């Protein structure tokens, strides 16, 4: 075993022995009252305000049955009505927002290409420079705000 490994092991032993001697940090006096108050508030709140996992068992079962019934009703009544309108019309209805979005994006893309083709290089470089300056300005401002907020705690 070389000297470096010996030193590393001695350092590890020292660190372990020193750190293991540290006693627990006492919790703030506010912690236990905070927890107990929250639990009391949670217990006093009605079942429907609690997470589903904490609902009474019979209500959990009832809610699952109701939800299943609702889904069955949707399947039984809504889907046949959509089929009656016709599959082609349905497909158009569902895809219309998507095709509109692609249409808008395509138009914007074409406009951007036209602008780039008809703009002088230095103008483009200046615009990109302004955008970069604003972007890094935002990061700098964010960093300053974060540091002020961190120091005030």
């Amino acid at each position: 075993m070389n000297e470096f490994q010996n030193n590393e092991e001695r350092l590890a032993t020292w660190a372990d022995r020193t750190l293991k001697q540290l006693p627990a940090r006492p919790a703030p006096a506010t912690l236990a009252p905070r927890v107990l108050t929250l639990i009391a508030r949670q217990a006093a709140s009605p079942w429907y305000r609690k997470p589903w996992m904490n609902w009474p068992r019979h209500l959990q079962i009832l809610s699952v049955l109701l939800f299943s019934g609702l889904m069955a009703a949707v399947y039984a009544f809504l889907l046949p009505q959509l089929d009656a309108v016709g599959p082609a019309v349905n497909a158009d209805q569902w895809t219309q927002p998507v095709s509109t979005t692609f249409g808008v994006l395509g138009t914007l893309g074409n406009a951007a290409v036209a602008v780039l083709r008809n703009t002088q290089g230095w103008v483009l470089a200046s615009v990109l420079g302004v955008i970069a300056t604003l972007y890094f300005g935002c990061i700098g401002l964010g960093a300053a705000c974060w540091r002020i907020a961190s120091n005030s705690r």
Partner: protein
Amino acid sequence: MSDPAPFETFVLNYQDMVFSTAVRLLSNEAEAEDVAQEAFLRAWNHWENLAGSPTAGGWLKTVTRNLCLNHLERYRSRWKMFTDLSREDEDGEARELEFAAPDTLDQTLLTQDQRRLIETAIQKLPKDQRVALVLYHFEDMDYADIAKHLGVSLGKIKTDIFRAREALQKKLQPARESVGV
């Protein structure tokens, strides 16, 4: 639900352990208190299984540790650059820390001032080094487990822990000499 009286005793018995784990991992007392509160609320939601269980303390410690790691992952990674900057700025500040009375004979080896110095030094370590060091020495996790939990390589964990120990050694030379190494 259950009777809250035994749970109150449970909170009082374990609050120091939970808070210590959280504050050492997060290096922030307000955030540590929030995490400790969340850990106890989870314990309350599982109280039917935990009440009287000999593994309740271990369960609570694991939940606290995982909450801290999630918290660090969620809230700190995007601000890594800024927190590291501010941490460097805080190097000169000495924070007042409190400690519970030592419960074993071994703990008398370190004086109150030395304990304060060590805790402060841990808090001032860079986040990656601090978390790895705390998980190894306080949470008794091995290198591979830490690497898996943090999603980084084994080599990085070993380097971080080594550097953290070195940094502690440099900052605590007087304390080190007084404990005889």
